């Protein structure tokens, strides 16, 4: 009586083990998909980061060049103002001297 029962039980167990194998395979494929998509997203992020780093580096260089140009223009502007001031003083002095001479003649 128990022999056919045993056979049935063994058949059932074999089916379950086969199903288990299928599930494990599916889990493996699902995990691989997750890993691959996360990996691809990381690659994409890394590419964007590199791009942004390159842009930051370009902008830093441009900023440094602009600052240098600004400093140079400030210096030139200061020198121009000093020369202008000296010219005005000289002109005023010459005018005063001319007026003084004119008054003394009178």
């Amino acid at each position: 009586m128990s022999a056919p029962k045993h056979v049935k039980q063994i058949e059932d167990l074999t089916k379950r083990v086969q199903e288990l194998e299928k599930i494990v395979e599916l889990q493996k494929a699902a995990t691989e998909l997750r890993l691959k998509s996360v990996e691809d997203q990381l690659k994409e992020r890394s590419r964007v980061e590199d791009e942004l780093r390159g842009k930051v580096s370009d902008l830093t260089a441009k900023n440094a060049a602009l600052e240098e140009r600004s400093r140079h223009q400030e210096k030139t502007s200061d020198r121009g103002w000093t020369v202008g001031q000296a010219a005005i003083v000289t002109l005023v002095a010459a005018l005063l001297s001319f007026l003084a001479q004119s008054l003394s003649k009178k």
Partner: protein
Amino acid sequence: MLRTTISTKSPETKAEMQIPPDLLASVKRATEILESELGELADKCEMVAKWHFGNWSDSEEVSVAHLSLTANGHLVGNLTFPPGTLKNDETIRRNLHPFLTEVGRHLSGLVKHRLNVLRKQLEEDLEALAALAKE
């Protein structure tokens, strides 16, 4: 293998929609990319990709593609491709990757559930076998 259906009928009104040919071509390309990204997963379970179209926000002029993916009859993800995201392979992949991570997570959940069911069945089988052995 991934089974694909592309419906050009509106899900709400069931009326035929005028889909630009370039959008249809992009959807076909996205399907090829999806199949290649799914890899052996598409062989290990019955996966169905259903595409349909809709309007972008309230604009009736801009059509967008929506994707519903099922695995063994279970919905594992919905994805909308906003305008411009079906432009080329790179933009398609960029939009697909976070979706596929979610699909993988969802499938793992389904597998976990099936494993639990199987574990219970195995326990019952082993108990029955032990009872038989005692007889």
